[in-house]
């Protein structure tokens, strides 16, 4: 059986009871778009940080292509793209320079940087802002820079936390198409969102997170996904109260 692109096994990292991640098992296979949904503070971002080595777990293991993220070598990280928290967009640099800087940090050889930057900027329709400094752009366009920075090297494991933040409807569609293309090309994609309708359009699986635990899955083709989401969260809360 093929190794999962991203996997969490018994991951725990708690801040206070009910916050953080309290024991999560999760897999994202090659070619799969896996969405995490949950209320604010449910633990989605903490889980993503653990999968990316931004936090060390109290117990459990996070892996990328079978490698423990705590000890993963550079070649494994070269296949990872992510946007968690703020976009990697330096205000003093132009859009193009920001994406080029990200390409170098992602391990692309210098001679391949220009072509990769052109390609991803076209995908995200950033061409008209190429020479504008990031500090002068709107939040949505800075988010597009962050997405371009995360994807410029065609990663095979992608982690995006609320990637539609600040995007206009055109940007949301561009992102949707971009994720579907990368998923079809074999990338394993983990994405979190509050927009249930949007994740239903792209995700192969939708997992609900509540108080640091996975509490169920939603059917992306379901008719009333919002009602199903709240039913799962409500049931999880009911189980917590004696």
């Amino acid at each position: 059986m093929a190794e999962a692109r991203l996997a969490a096994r018994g991951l725990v990292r708690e801040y206070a009871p009910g916050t953080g991640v309290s024991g999560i098992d999760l897999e994202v296979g090659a070619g799969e778009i896996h969405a995490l949904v949950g209320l604010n503070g449910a633990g989605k971002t903490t889980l993503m940080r653990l999968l990316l080595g931004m936090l060390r777990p109290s117990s459990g293991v996070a892996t990328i292509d079978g490698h423990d993220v705590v000890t993963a070598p550079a070649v494994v990280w070269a296949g990872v793209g992510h946007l968690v928290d703020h976009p990697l967009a330096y205000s003093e640099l132009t859009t193009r320079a920001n994406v080029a800087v990200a390409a170098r940090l992602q391990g692309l050889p210098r001679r391949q940087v220009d072509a990769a930057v052109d390609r991803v900027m076209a995908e995200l329709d950033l061409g008209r802002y190429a020479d504008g400094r990031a500090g002068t752009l709107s939040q949505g366009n800075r988010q597009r820079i962050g997405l371009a920075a995360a994807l410029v090297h065609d990663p095979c494991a992608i982690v995006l936390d609320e990637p539609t933040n600040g995007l206009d409807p055109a940007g949301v569609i561009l992102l949707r198409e971009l994720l579907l293309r990368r998923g079809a090309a074999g990338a394993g994609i983990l994405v979190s969102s509050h927009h249930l309708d949007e994740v239903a359009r792209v995700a192969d699986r939708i997992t609900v997170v509540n108080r640091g635990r996975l509490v169920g899955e939603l059917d992306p083709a379901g008719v009333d996904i919002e009602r199903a989401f709240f039913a799962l969260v409500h049931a999880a809360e009911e189980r917590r109260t004696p």
Partner: protein
Amino acid sequence: MSGTNAAIAVEIVKTTASGVVRSATIFLVAGIVALAGSLTWAAERGNEQVLAQLGGLANAEGWDRFLGVAAQVTAAGGVLGFGVVLSWMVGREFADGTVAGLFALPVSRSAVALAKLASYALWAVAVAAILVVLLAIGGVVLGLGRVDAEALDGLGRQLTLMVLSAGLAVPAAWAATLGRGLLPGIATTIGIIVVAQVLVIAGTGAWFPLAAPALWALEPDEVSSGQLALSTLVPLVVGWATLVAWRRLQLD
């Protein structure tokens, strides 16, 4: 450390595009030349208030006085300027939230930290070189005579003082990392300046690494090479601590 070359290339791009670094360069170079030049000009004309402020340098003449004043200004202003820039280079990643993008890369975080220190060092050496050239031109314009061997010695000491001052500001990088922002780095820089001044007044003198470079620039014969070498331990030890702090960093 993996990806150090790429990290250095990236940090150089960020440094050269930075308005903060440009402003600090002007502050350091123009500020020191203007202060040293105007104080020397006033002293040459017998301004008693300025002569009183210059202390021992009031009795010096020509290039000695000019470069002595430049060294005095550099001792405090240089460390402040260097510390502010280094605090920004490191602390801005936390303040702007870009630090998250420096995780999960083939470039290790300690390589990113090393690249920041390397880029900072290159900039500091460039600033020191520009300052020395402008001081030489300034001295000639002030009518101190041609740049003779003695003046060249003084300019060499000024160059060394600038580079050593940049090294003394390296704890700002460590503080900005541990404190996750610009202000801890800037506060540490101010602390370094204040402690150095107080200990010099208290008489610990050149054995205190933070004070040795300035004392040496003013009174080369009063500071041994061993005492001066101690001051180079500050960037080496604290620089290493900064790399370790970046390697262990978590976004908690």
